């Protein structure tokens, strides 16, 4: 963002002063994707002057799909409540000129998949096959990004690959850490003796003489399952 309040790059007639524009942009010229305007108490539409400025900018900067971000500000009569509204336009297109503007934040940059911290009880609750695996002498290296058709129970734990974050979508409610902790207490009393590192066999390479045949597993496993609620 480069505010141009000190030197304007256009005049009252809407004619762009290229020299001023260049002095504002300098070497950032190639990174320009659009321009913005802030007005108070006005309609959410491009004014005529803005339209002609937009046409000139499109040509001068050589950006065919230049965008225009319009901010408008309105208040209640007693000034107790104020609203800042924003619309993103693509004026060079014939249809669908308005686009949704998404603000990336903590709530929507969380990628799919691994979400919750677990403790051992939960792990065995989630993956009953783990119990069998602990009892049998099995291979315990988790495989990444694959859902192997024939593999030992533990290696069925898959890590979902995060999708490219082009349009961040709101991920489903990840359980909060606190819930898991309280669940811990309730599970401690009801579940079987806790898993300890000693019970889990040491990892063995696939193909080694100790490698077992895969046991039956009821459900598809994925760490993306949300716990609890």
């Amino acid at each position, binding site marked *: *963002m*480069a*505010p141009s309040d*000190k030197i304007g790059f256009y005049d009252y007639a809407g004619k762009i002063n290229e020299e001023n524009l260049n002095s504002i942009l300098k070497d950032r010229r190639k990174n320009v994707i659009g321009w913005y305007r802030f007005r108070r108490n006005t309609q*959410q539409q491009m004014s005529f002057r803005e339209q002609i400025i937009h046409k000139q900018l499109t040509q001068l900067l050589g950006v065919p799909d230049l965008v225009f971000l319009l901010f408008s500000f309105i208040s*209640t009569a*007693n*000034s*107790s*409540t*104020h*609203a*800042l*509204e*924003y*619309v*993103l336009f693509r004026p060079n297109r014939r249809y669908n000129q*308005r*686009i*949704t*503007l998404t*603000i*990336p*934040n*903590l*709530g*929507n*940059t*969380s*990628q799919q998949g*691994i*979400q*919750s*911290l*677990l*403790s*051992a009880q939960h*792990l065995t609750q989630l993956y009953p096959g783990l119990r069998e695996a602990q009892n049998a002498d099995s291979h*315990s290296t*988790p495989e990444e990004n694959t859902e192997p058709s024939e593999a030992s129970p*533990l290696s069925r*734990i898959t*890590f979902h690959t995060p999708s490219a974050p082009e349009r961040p979508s*709101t991920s489903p409610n990840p359980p*909060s*850490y*606190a819930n*898991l*902790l309280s669940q*811990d207490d309730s599970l401690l009393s009801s579940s079987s003796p*806790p*898993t*300890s*590192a000693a*019970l*889990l066999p040491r990892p063995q390479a696939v193909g080694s003489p100790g490698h077992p045949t895969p046991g039956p597993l009821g459900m598809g496993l994925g*760490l993306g399952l949300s716990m609890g609620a």
Partner: protein
Amino acid sequence: MAVTSVHLESDAFLVCMNHALSTEKEEVMGLCIGEVEVTRIVHIHSVIILRRSDKRKDRVEISPEQLSAASTEAERLADITGRPMRVVGWYHSHPHITVWPSHVDVRTQAMYQMLDQCFVGLIFSCFIEDKNTKTGRVLYTCFQSVQAQKGSEYERVEIPIHVVPREAIGKVCLESAVELPRILCQEEQDTYRKIHSLAHLDPVTKIHNGSVFTKNLCSQMSAVSGPLLQWLEDRLEQNKQSVVELQQEKERLLQELAAL
């Protein structure tokens, strides 16, 4: 009416907005520091970002410990700025929800007003979108609570609020702004440590937990720390540019003066 209006310094406003826009998944909150003038105008000079221990929906409450810590902070600010500062209000966000305070909010505000008649409440409503016009909206309002008659329900009273422009971001507000990534990181570390203090974790669980921790920290960096840093660097660049231009103007004027 206890308070006539609220004047919110624009750099404090900036911190609130940044905080409110940091997440759409939960409500955030903080305290406002400033002074109340004889004309009953509340002047907010800075804000303190708070951590929410109870993250249930619409349970925005400030613990006595947080209030006490905020008072200490206010005293520190009073020393720095040389003006009498104290906690004068609270703010919280309403992501995807209307800007008006809920019944719980009005009651909470009423409770604070019992301690301080001039205590004000601010609400920031964000991540609102009008699907028809593709218009996004961020709203903010200021209110107090009043009880029509003894024993009746508390009601909202609208208080005019004005944002006071400032040439630059004050040092205090700058510190508050960068407090957010610090708080987020701290929360994440606390949760991770708590889980890992449980004795009987198997290796797979440890790997899983470590991955969650890393992922969450990265998420914070991409959503909060990264953009904040970028914005501050851009602003610094602009300020440096301003300085150069002003110096050039000064040179020109001096030359003009010398020519006279």
